[in-house]
């Protein structure tokens, strides 16, 4: 959330002080270093220590606020009480105005969840894995049905909070799924995400590539994290939330996994060539959003700019449209892709990086936009 005050060499943003009240845990989630079977050193903070650390870091402009979770000690309620106590102290004693995100335990009492929501801006429960069966083997104490139930309660409280200001409640909930720890395919992940966005109004679903931990479980041998897969899932998630795509358009029974080499929108467009090309000067905003290489901002700009004159390729170039990607899918006043006679395989090859590059730092390459100036032909 908010500003990133630093970045670690893994490319991730540091925005919040993200800590556990304790890493002692009763549960045995096999992907987690803090599971009870793990042999790591155990430690715990007192709630007061966490409060002080948050305040001190915040005043130095290191962070936007606190993301607090905890291993489960004694019971869900006992643990939740401690977590809530930290947030309450920050808000009521120190009038802390920064951001607070609390991880909630589905089995905690209704009263404690209400309190967590009262002090936090965001609360979350991790759904962890998309399928019930994998959760049973990999996180035997967790349960999807109970998690969904708790998410539903949070959704209700959150909407009550919206209609009645006095019942202040966190403005959103989010969750996380671990990618690559079980056999679930991308379709499973995206369907679960669709379920959560649709039914419980989640703000965000985070996808976290399963990554080596210091003391791995016999039940879950380590693998190197599938970072590109994580990145593609985020792109697909984005398409569902902001571009009007349905889950079953992004993955299909024949293609249950996302194409790792190209982005999911391009991949969809190549499966649906019959819908293209579309005319930049006539198509609706919704149609523009579906063109590979066109983002929300540019789709808006196009609908604005074409009012004054019919757009040509050079206009799109000035707007920084990724023409390399969109050229085969669009018609402009001076361009008809049919003449280029490009087949889908060629387009895919043009955008797919060489195979070994996929293993490397691909995600960061994607984040740095490179706009190439192109002529009339490839």
């Amino acid at each position, binding site marked *: 959330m908010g*500003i*990133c*005050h*630093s*970045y*670690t*060499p*893994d*490319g*991730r*943003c*540091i925005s919040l*002080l*993200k800590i556990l009240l304790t890493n002692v845990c*009763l549960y*045995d989630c*096999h992907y987690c270093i803090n599971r*009870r*079977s793990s*042999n790591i050193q155990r430690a715990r903070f007192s709630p007061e220590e966490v409060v002080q*650390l948050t305040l*001190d*870091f915040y*005043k*130095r*402009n*290191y962070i936007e606020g606190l993301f607090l979770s905890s291993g489960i000690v*004694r*019971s*869900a309620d006992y643990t939740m009480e401690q977590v809530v106590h930290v947030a309450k102290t920050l808000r009521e004693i120190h*009038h802390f*105005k920064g951001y607070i995100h609390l991880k909630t335990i589905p089995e905690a009492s209704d009263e404690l969840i209400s309190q967590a929501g009262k002090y936090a801006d965001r609360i979350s429960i991790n759904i962890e894995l998309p399928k019930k069966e994998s959760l049973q083997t990999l996180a035997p*104490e967790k*349960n999807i049905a109970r998690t969904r139930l708790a998410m539903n309660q949070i959704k209700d409280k959150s909407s009550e909070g919206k209609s009645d200001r006095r019942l202040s409640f966190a403005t959103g909930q989010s969750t996380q799924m671990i990618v690559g720890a079980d056999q679930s395919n991308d379709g499973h992940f995206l369907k679960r995400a669709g379920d959560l966005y649709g039914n419980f109004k989640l703000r965000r679903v985070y996808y976290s*590539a399963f*990554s*080596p*931990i*210091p*003391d*791995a*479980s*016999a039940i879950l*041998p*380590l693998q*190197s*994290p599938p*970072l590109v897969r994580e990145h593609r899932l985020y792109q697909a998630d984005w398409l569902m939330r902001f571009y009007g795509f349905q889950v079953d358009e992004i993955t299909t029974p024949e293609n249950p996994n996302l194409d790792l080499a190209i982005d999911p929108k391009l991949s969809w467009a190549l499966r649906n060539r019959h819908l293209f090309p579309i005319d930049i000067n006539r198509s609706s905003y919704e149609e523009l959003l579906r063109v590979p290489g066109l983002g929300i901002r540019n789709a808006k700009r196009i609908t*604005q*700019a074409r*009012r*004054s004159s019919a757009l040509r390729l050079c*206009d799109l170039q*000035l*707007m920084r449209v990724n023409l390399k990607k969109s050229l085969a899918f669009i018609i402009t006043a001076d361009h008809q892709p049919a003449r280029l006679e490009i087949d889908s395989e060629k387009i895919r090859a043009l955008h797919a990086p060489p195979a070994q590059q996929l293993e490397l*730092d691909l*995600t*960061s390459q994607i*984040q*740095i936009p490179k706009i190439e100036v192109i002529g009339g032909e490839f």
Partner: protein
Amino acid sequence: MHTVHFPSHFKQWRTIARSLLSQGLPPDEVLWQDPQQTSLFAQQTDEAPCDREAKAVPKAFLKLAQTISCHRSNEQWSLLYSLLWRLCHGDKQLLSKPHDPQVRRAQQMAKQIGRDLHKMHAFVRFKKVGEAEQREQFVAWFEPEHLIVRLSAPFFKNRFASMDWSILTPDECVHWSGSELHYSEGVDQSLAEKHDHLDELWRTYYRSIFNPARLKVRAMQSEMPQKYWKNLPEADLIEELITKSKERTQEMLNNPLSPVKPAPKNTYLERLKELEK
């Protein structure tokens, strides 16, 4: 050709621009110049404030002009005058033409300012220097790319209202002690405090949340360019974290797998088991 000096801020530009506009001088007859390099033969335009009715321009233009006035290049002044001229001479919809090269250039500049502002909000680091009358006192040093001290100050004022602070920069400094923002001339870095006893704790945190198995150095650098590193207490850890990451990951992968331990006796866990049935 009329020559005018680069103004030093938005309001000054507005005064000059109004005067040029009322004299009917088109942009290509006006030369905006560094006061140090003004040509001897150029004709100096009267900069006296003009009390003629101000031209109505879209709010969006004023906002854009205010923003890019902070650009360090000084290229914005003539660009802004061209845009103003076109707005006042029939092209009212100018700003909704993102494909117009001048509009595009102005938007690019605004984006650069926006990014600079964002990075300043992110990377200013306050160092505690004392405490007086129950208010803690902090000082930060920062070198923004553009002249954005005043633009950035409200953010810090809102967020750090309950402490006293100064942000020192080579261009201008801003100070807050609870009632009003004050500005003073730019200073040299030697005046800034370099240490804070919390820095070490922050470094520990930084080290601990880095995941060596997901090295993505370029992603980090594109978001946190090296020019900002010198003020970040965590930055000198980066190199070591990167060099050791491979070894640390390999170590994790080589470690023997741990067997599963039985659940301890605990009523809560038993209840969970019940629920499962």
